């Protein structure tokens, strides 16, 4: 974090008056605006998508109770179940009652097992979050490294190799990368398990053994995008006048690249990373099937195959929540880290 200090020449007047204890306050302020906009996008999208799924469920002529109870159910049984789940009420009443409960963390109960949906989700969620965190880390490290390397050797063989690699990767879905990794590291050279899961809290070492292949598979896309974007913006920044100025002042190349150019070039790359996170989370649903992980995707897929609407709704809402939180974090980081965005903020 030492590179966070900004040379006074770049800092606009008035900034010096800020109390030095302002780092914490800085993060607070960095969060305020993205929080507002994340909520302004997140709330409508949650309302819209949940209402659509509710309305779709109501408009199709499938009767969940009849489906759950099977062929031997009497009409009285069906009425009783409809009443138990509140399905005999008007659609809007059902929806708003669900929404009210959802706000307090109660996502209803499964039609089939009658287990609380919230419990199933809190069991599955750590799988997704831990693997998503690991793959974003991998994407930043690998993509960032390749991007910086390519930019510094702009036009050279390394640059061309990275560009070619990134284009090739764009045609492979992450789950295919995952299958390739299973073939390499579980079948040909059997050093890692091909599927399964151990929670991080139980045994971090075992968790890593199970999580590393899915994380690599999921990170490939984001890493390629990041590398390509970072290369382009870094090459652009390195041609800028302030870089010549920094060179003339006799700063070391490392200081110029990492202290000045990279911080300005990181903005677009971070934005792209923000875009790739929803896709990463979506792709994880498929990776879960390939690696046999007990995550949200498996929960949602099982529920979808039975028409267990409360569970489907819960998984959808949780996924959207994850995406909104990730976007919030990326935007806050953007405001905090890139000088350009900070200047615009004032």
């Amino acid at each position: 974090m030492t590179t966070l200090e900004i040379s006074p020449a770049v800092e606009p007047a008035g900034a010096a008056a800020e109390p030095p204890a302002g780092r914490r306050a800085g993060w607070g302020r960095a969060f305020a605006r993205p929080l507002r906009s994340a909520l302004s996008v997140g709330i409508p999208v949650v309302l819209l998508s949940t209402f659509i799924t509710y309305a779709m469920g109501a408009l199709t002529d499938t009767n969940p109770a009849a489906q759950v109870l099977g062929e031997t159910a009497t009409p009285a049984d069906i009425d009783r179940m409809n009443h138990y789940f509140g399905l005999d009420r008007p659609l809007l009443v059902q929806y708003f009652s669900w929404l009210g409960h959802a706000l307090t963390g109660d996502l209803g109960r499964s039609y089939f097992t009658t287990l609380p949906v919230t419990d199933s989700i809190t069991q599955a969620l750590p799988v997704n979050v831990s693997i998503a965190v690991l793959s974003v880390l991998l994407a930043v490290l690998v993509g960032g490294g390749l991007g910086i390397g390519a930019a510094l050797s702009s036009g050279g063989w390394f640059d061309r190799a990275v560009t070619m690699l990134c284009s090739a990767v764009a045609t492979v879905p992450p789950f295919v990368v995952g299958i390739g990794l299973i073939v390499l590291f579980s079948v040909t050279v059997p050093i890692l398990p091909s599927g399964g899961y151990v929670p991080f809290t139980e045994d971090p070492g075992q968790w890593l053994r199970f999580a590393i292949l899915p994380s690599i598979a999921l990170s490939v896309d984001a890493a390629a995008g990041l590398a390509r974007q970072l290369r382009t913006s870094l090459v652009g920044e390195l041609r800028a006048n302030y870089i010549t100025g920094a060179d003339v002042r006799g700063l070391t190349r490392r200081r110029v690249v990492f202290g000045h150019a990279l911080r300005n070039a990181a903005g677009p790359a971070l934005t792209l990373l923000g875009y790739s996170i929803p896709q990463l989370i979506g792709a994880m649903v498929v990776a879960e099937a390939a690696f046999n992980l007990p995550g949200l995707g498996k929960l949602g897929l099982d529920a979808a195959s039975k028409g267990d609407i409360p569970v489907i709704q819960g998984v959808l809402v949780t996924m959207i929540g994850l995406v909104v939180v990730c976007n919030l974090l990326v935007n806050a980081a953007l405001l905090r880290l890139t000088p350009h965005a900070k200047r615009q903020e004032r």
Partner: protein
Amino acid sequence: MTRKTAGPLRRAVRLRSTKIALVILGAVAVLGFLGGTLAPSDPLAQDTSNLLAGPSGAHWLGTDYLGRDVLSRLMDATGRSVVGAVEAVTVAFLLGVPAGLGSVVFGRVFEWVAQRLVDAVMTLPYIIFAIAVTGIIGNGRDQAMLAIGVLLAPLFFRVTRAAALAFTRAQYVEVAELLGASRGWIIRTHIWSKVLPTVAVTTAQLSAAALLAVSSLSFLGIGVKPPAPTWGGMLSSDLGFLAQQPWAPAIPALAIMLTAGSLNAIADAIRDTTGIAVDPIGRGATRPDAVPALPGAPAVAVPEQEERIHA
């Protein structure tokens, strides 16, 4: 952009990468229409004495765990895999392109509503939304593709809007407005032809993205009826027999990659030869004015994002 687009398009076709891509896509199209009838044997016929066999004279690409001919399944699956992608892209096109043009022309209210909807839809992860939709309204290809199409539409919207915006401020459009031309006429005569190359590039890119989404969904068993082969479904059944046939997933994977790669190559060729900036990433050209920033992102000068999205 004063020159006609026919010239650059012809130059795009002359590129070697475009020719290879067109040959591959042509083959995919032929297989898509005729795959089932051209196949050397019945894709569902089980040769129980030849389970998980390697390539041989009778089965060029070997057989799967039920002794079904892999080559025949691959050919028969082509249509099913490609039609899904075409459906999704058509839905996305019909929703996104008119709305993108409309947001430029039809005043602020339309623009505001469209932008909010786009921001909202962009937040949904494709696959889980498609799973939810099929879980509720039925597990069929049309339902799954409708869901994917809706989620791809914002990308069409953004690209069309950005391209059209650049031309609505052109002087000849102002002149036409002053002369009393209707908005519809201006769109048809002045704007559409300029936006067309951009839309073509986006269509090719999103077709590739949709193909990957379709494959992912059929891998999960969504949007397909089980015995009928799909590329994604073949990958899924190969996954259970990696110990016996570690190379088997490479065959359907290669089919997916070649098709998606050809679409992307054509998109790249059109873009490079027409000089439009749909995807300047990695190619230098940046247009900071057409920034599709992350919902709620601070105003950083961001080059237009690459609209090549995986499920």
